[in-house]
């Protein structure tokens, strides 16, 4: 393999913090639309919303360390015609305010955007109390809630724009973990649609969010071993792109899912479609039924095999090659 065609390891690509795209987009939208407000739980800094407060003052509502109140306040603002972006660490937003997300947002079908910041194992060293690996499994179980997991800054910006215009509740999972650009130039986010980042015929790797880049790297490793892997990025966990999953199962005959979460998130969602429509062998890369230990996010991802090597190994295992 020559050096100019060799894959650039993730660590050597320019990495971005998707929160920057989130805030920049929100600032732009808020300039034109006075209905847009932000609600936080002492999370101005961790949401990077300082500039929003500077620009729009009272439209940044900080309820303090009070997550149930925060989501309820968002629902009340939506009742008054505002478009609230409720932004807090994903671990607290989802776990502490789960009933408010279920009742005040989803059952009530309010136009409100729940922004889960630094999800997965982004707060790696802070330990399992601060990890949010359950959120995808929890929230995809709630009827009427759209669950969006952007993979890079461009997709984050698009998803924020879409959520601001979508008349319904949305959970937006936005990481602080550095990610490279993975989507092509001019990319357009379409809710409920997968993105085929690489064509392939032997196996499909379905990945979401921060770890899409690791799936792409795995496909490179597999190509080196003569295995043709399709890579699907799945920015919407709910509603899931069932067509793309069924086509992947039928056309490639095996599926590996990859996520920075318990495998009952994306993995469970994909498996439910596969088993109903096109049963094929599957493997699930993510956190198994365990709390993650303490460590840096990169260390934790590798620890759980959520790495190019780990994903490639799972693909070879499912293929028996």
């Amino acid at each position: 393999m020559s050096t100019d065609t060799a894959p650039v390891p993730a660590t050597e690509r320019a990495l971005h913090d998707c929160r920057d795209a989130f805030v920049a987009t929100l600032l732009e939208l808020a300039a034109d639309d006075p209905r847009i407000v932000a609600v936080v739980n002492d999370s101005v800094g961790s949401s990077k919303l300082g500039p929003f407060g500077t620009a729009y003052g009272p439209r940044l509502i900080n309820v303090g360390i009070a997550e149930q109140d925060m989501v309820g306040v968002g629902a009340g603002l939506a009742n008054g015609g505002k478009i609230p972006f409720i932004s807090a660490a994903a671990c607290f937003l989802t776990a502490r305010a789960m009933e408010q997300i279920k009742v005040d947002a989803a059952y009530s079908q309010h136009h409100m955007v729940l922004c889960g910041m630094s999800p997965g194992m982004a707060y790696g060293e802070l330990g399992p109390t601060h990890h949010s690996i359950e959120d995808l499994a929890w929230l995809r179980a709630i009827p009427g809630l759209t669950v969006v997991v952007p993979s890079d800054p461009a997709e984050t910006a698009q998803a924020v724009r879409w959520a601001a215009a979508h008349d319904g509740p949305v959970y937006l999972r936005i990481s602080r973990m550095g990610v490279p650009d993975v989507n092509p130039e001019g990319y357009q986010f379409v809710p409920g649609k997968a993105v085929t980042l690489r064509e392939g015929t032997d196996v499909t790797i379905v990945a979401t969010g921060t770890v899409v880049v690791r799936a792409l790297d795995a496909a490179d490793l597999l190509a080196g071993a003569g295995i043709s892997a399709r890579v699907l990025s799945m920015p919407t966990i709910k509603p899931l792109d069932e067509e793309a999953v069924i086509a992947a199962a039928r056309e490639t005959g095996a599926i590996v899912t990859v996520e920075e979460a318990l495998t009952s998130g994306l993995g469970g969602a994909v498996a439910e479609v596969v088993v109903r429509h096109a049963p094929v062998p599957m493997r699930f890369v993510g956190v198994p039924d365990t709390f993650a230990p303490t460590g840096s996010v990169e260390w934790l991802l590798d620890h759980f095999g959520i790495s190019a090597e780990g994903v490639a190994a799972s693909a070879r295992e499912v293929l028996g090659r």
Partner: protein
Amino acid sequence: MSAVEEDLVPALDPTGLPVDELPVMGRIDASAGREAVVAHLAEAARQVRRRDIQMIRAAGLGHIGGEFSVIDILVTLYLHALDVTPQTVTDPERDRLILSKGHAAAALYTTLSIAGFIPPAELSTFMRPLAQLNGHPARTKIAAVEASTGPLGHGLPIAVGTAFGGALDGSPRRTVVVVGDGELQEGSNWEALMTAGNHRLANLCVVVDRNRLQQGARVADTNDLEPLADKLRAFGMEVVEVDGHDHGALVDVFAAVPAASGRPTAVIAHTFKGHPISFMSDDVAWHHKVPSPEQVATALIELETP
């Protein structure tokens, strides 16, 4: 009349008891004079209780104790104090009422019906399969329902959000949230009260239906709230105590919102669960007990007597 419409107006409920047709009495404003307002509200509350007890009997389910304690509050709000009518139910500038104690759904539906928001015939669908009148109110089903409630401790934070929205818009619209006293054991209420007090949301009015009973026992014997008024004051509220069954007193209290102090108002409305029925009043057994046909008959006779 279609088959579905016929189904909505049975002459008898499934238990064989006659069903009273609930009149639509509508809103009465202060220009009618205080005496006329109070008489209108008293008659409306009497009619609402008559229909409510029959609904609970027909459905075989419900929370009649907490409904009878809150009916005078709801009637005073929807038929007089609030600036909202069936014609303005989607107007952004309407006043909002959020019934946080959503288990008192039947009281809300009957009050909304007598105020003209829900056709009286629809009350017969309460808790039937696929009915819009769920066992707990759903905002996606009834236009006048501002918040889906049922699990306790949700209404107050939502009300704080609507009050914030009004303040951001510079609007005079008011938000009233009715909470049960037992419900105040949920911590989310205190998060919301802290927010409301610190942000001086004067357009917010929190009404505590202080019937002193919760599902299983007296509030005082479960996890006591006292000194409630002091606690609310400490959270930055303007606190008023009132007889929650006295329509005239309730009229005066709501007329004083927003408070001149610029603080949000908390109204501690002293009520009795099951009021004013002799065998239900202040008895914890009537949290969600269904009355027998004889008890319904007795209650209806008691409700005839002023």
